[in-house]
């Protein structure tokens, strides 16, 4: 018996959980093991469907753990959201500087910078001006269907430079006026990791955490790895204490034809999803999320080079024709 959870969201992924994991362990042979029952929370995290599947012997305790986890999600949304007017990111984008920022923002900016240098610029959180450019272009009546003009894109490119972001724990700031950041390509992973910390600190050992990116703590109920299915393929990734992240360009599109979307190549300022989707497994969700964003815009041979820098990361590229390309450990 296999229970299948199909979650469709922006970052499409399907989770296949082993049968015993979801079926509340009725088996008689395990009488000595405390009965782990599945406690499941579903809701929203950072604008996407989210769920926490927690295996725990005590229902009340499980509820408290999940409440703490959701509070952590809300706290971080208040820092990273581009839509909440008082969020740290919105204030940074507006003022170009933020004193005494939440340490989470400092840590994530540093992680983003590290990701940017490890992917040779294929990841860059400072692409937010491009997003404004494209959205503005396509929301005007009679917009050119071929996208913004080359000079317009060129004018934006000097604002795209992760090296120009200062991430001190006393203050974060941009070195150039007009810069702005989006952490949407990596924040979900970061939030997933921080929530995993909260879950572990409260004694949760077996959790499948899906906050836009997936992180598995421990094993599924029968002791086997959690099984994550990559949507649109028959690939199933067995994961234990690992994270899985997927990026797909078709999630947010600007034009009716779907040629322009939110995955920008920071190196030339174009919309550049080369694949139907890219799924990355890595030890932390921050790395998996940032890597999947970066790998979406690079050619396979560049991806091989980039992945050499991440010893425990694996990437599955779903090509336009449905074939799957696997690179990495």
């Amino acid at each position, binding site marked *: 018996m296999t229970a299948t959870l199909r979650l469709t969201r922006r970052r499409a992924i399907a989770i296949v959980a082993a049968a015993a994991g979801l079926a509340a362990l009725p088996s008689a042979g395990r009488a000595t093991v405390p009965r782990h029952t599945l406690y499941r929370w579903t809701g929203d995290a950072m604008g996407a469907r989210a769920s926490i599947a927690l295996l725990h012997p005590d229902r009340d305790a499980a509820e408290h753990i999940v409440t*703490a986890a959701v*509070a*952590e999600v*809300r*706290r971080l949304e*208040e*820092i990273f959201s581009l*839509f*909440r*007017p*008082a969020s740290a990111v919105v*204030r940074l984008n*507006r*003022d170009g500087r933020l*004193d*005494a920022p*939440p*340490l*989470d923002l*400092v*840590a994530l900016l*540093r*992680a983003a*910078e*590290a990701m940017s*240098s490890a992917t040779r610029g294929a990841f860059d959180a400072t692409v937010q001006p491009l997003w404004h450019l494209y959205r503005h272009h396509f929301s005007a009546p009679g917009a050119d269907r071929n996208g913004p003009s080359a000079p317009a894109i060129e004018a934006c490119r000097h604002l795209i430079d992760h090296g120009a972001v200062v*991430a*001190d*724990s*006393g*203050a974060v700031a941009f070195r150039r006026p007009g810069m702005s950041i989006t952490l949407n390509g990596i924040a979900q992973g970061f939030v997933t*990791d*921080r929530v995993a*910390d*909260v879950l572990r*600190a*409260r004694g949760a050992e077996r959790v499948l955490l899906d906050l836009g990116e997936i992180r598995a703590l421990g094993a599924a109920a029968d002791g086997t790895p959690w099984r994550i299915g990559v949507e649109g393929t028959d690939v199933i990734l067995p994961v234990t204490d690992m994270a899985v992240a997927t990026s797909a360009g078709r999630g947010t599109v600007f034009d009716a034809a779907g040629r322009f979307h939110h995955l920008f190549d920071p190196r030339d300022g174009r919309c550049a999803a080369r694949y139907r989707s890219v799924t990355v497994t*890595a*030890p*932390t969700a*921050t*790395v998996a999320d940032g890597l999947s964003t970066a790998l979406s815009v690079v050619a396979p041979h560049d991806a091989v080079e980039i992945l050499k820098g*991440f*010893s*425990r990361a694996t990437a599955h590229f779903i090509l336009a024709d449905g074939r799957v390309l696997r690179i990495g450990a």
Partner: protein
Amino acid sequence: MPSVTSKRPAGSFAWGWRRILGAAAVAILLCLPRSQAGADDLARVLPDIALNTLVPGADAAGPVEGDPPAAPVLRRGRQVGLILLTSDVVASSGYSGKPVKIAVGLDLSGKITGAAIVEHHEPILVLGIGKPHLDAFLEQFRGFDLRRPVRVVSEGEQAPPGSTGVHMVTGASITSLVFSDGIVRAARLVARSRGLIGDADGPGLDIESFREADWESLVRDGSVRHLTVTAGDVAARLGEEAGAEPERVMLDIFLALVTPAAIGQNLFGFQAHSALLAGLPDGSHVIMVAGGGAYSFKGYTFARTGVFDRLQVVQGERTIRLRTDMYRPVEAFAATAAPEVRDIGLFILGPDSGFDPVRPWRVDVMVDTARPDGSASGVAVPFEYQVPASLIRAAAPVAMPAEPPLWRQRWEAERTSIVILGITLAVVLAILFLHDGLARRPRIMQWLRPTLLLFTLVYLGWTVNAQLSVLNVLTVVGALINGFQWDFFLMEPTIFILWCFVAVTVLFWGRGVFCGWLCPFGAMQELLHRLAIAFGVAQIRIPYRLHERLLPLKYFIFLGLVAVALGIPSWVEILAEVEPFKTAIALKMMREGRFVFYALAIVGLSLHLERPFCRYLCPLGAGLAIASRNPMFDWLQRRRQCGTECTLCASRCPVQAVHANGQVDQHECIYCLSCQTLYHDDHKCPPLVARRRRREGGQQREDRP
């Protein structure tokens, strides 16, 4: 005793009950289509709200979010408070039975900073009491601390000690209560959900208890938490390979909540601990972060920047950065067998930080490392803390004094008037039951009735405002549609009791018991009419045929109002002004000219004509008359000769409720008993006069029935 006669057909008793069941069925049907409360109305009305009147200095508002919903408001990009709409948070319907929408501003310390009406349908306020009264009422909530209980008091009354008193709008007590209740309850729910104030019955921290404990037992019972993080742990958090010395201790951290004597006094000694707490504002707490290890949690820049660049405190959805003004360095522990650690820092979390000492919290220590390529990386390493359960009191009796339900507060406050009303109703019942004996004693009736009417007018009417109104009926109709709440109807005890009494008496005796004895405006008309007669004011006698054609008018008015109540509820309050009750009774004629003119016109007319309003216009009377189609008891006695040989009662009935054929019209009768007085008067009732004369003279013919 004369026998009780009835002109109703046999079996009418059963018919009456069938009617009641039918009415109940209708009531149940009306219950079915419950209207949906408009959730999240705030988002709709937010653009029209002047933010800085609700939260001083606010210049922008964020999106409505959360449960219960509220919108953050900002000043120069920093959140300074919240705005909520009462109807989004609590179901508080006003006197009209319709939701009251009040926008309320809160600051982040759990105080109300302003309140403004967005929408209401309160009848008094629609036409009676002006905006200035209302603004003055709402102004009282500015600065109200949600942790304190609130009491709505009337002019001159004192709020109980420890609570905040709010003066009600005179003449609009229910409305004041409902507004106050809605504002405070909704604001508390929002403030609590955002952690601005503690839970009403939430647990409290035991600060005072002290038992000496050494370092080891403090660590063992969780008063002090000791956590270490190695270089390997930090690398794993970064998703990197462990470096050369994975076992090297990077952070060796001790955490404690210092506020309770059981922890703080053991750690630092009595003097240091009490000196530390003495200077702090109420609700402050002190935490300790101490430790060693290769990496300093304090960092090196705080003296220059004013911020501890490696520390933040996290609790629930709150992130608190630690600044130097919160910092109190300590040299060493006083506890026995305490280790020596490099740094001991105490941090004061003020009442506005929202820190709740009994809930779990953590300190994030930002660990900066250099990457192989020279770039900085950082990871926030969490250290969790939870104060031991032995220091948590199950419920803090002082946390937030509970208030009894609003309606019970009202019943307690109105105790005196409830008792007096009870006595009044008992007197009226006694008159009903003893009417026969009373009617034989015209001299008693002569003073009893005016006395009681005067009492009804002055006490029930002007003093306690217990004037029933057709609006009550329409409110019940509205409540059956929108969701019936007992609490709401219990809020005005005297009105509630009166209605219960009227419901019973209408079924048993008809509308007359209320209209004739307990309606203040009816009493006013009748008393004035009596005065007018005493002063010889000319009287109008409406010809019966005209009278008959004027009677239906009140039914049209009543049915019209019901129709409007179902269709366009917002018009009802205005149309219900056909009743001069509010002008003449609730507001004692202190109102805009047109209303006073109308009321005075009716009062003036009543000098020439008994109870003109009751007879031809009163929608409440009409509603009660419909319900009193077949009263169970017909105690008004008639004679065989009534309407055939004699029409004295018909011509003497003040409201022309006795037909020329001798029957009493229950729809019109005000139970004044004047026909019964006549009935027993052997100097007036012709058949009795005849019998008396015969007895005295012995030559008149027999006329016993």
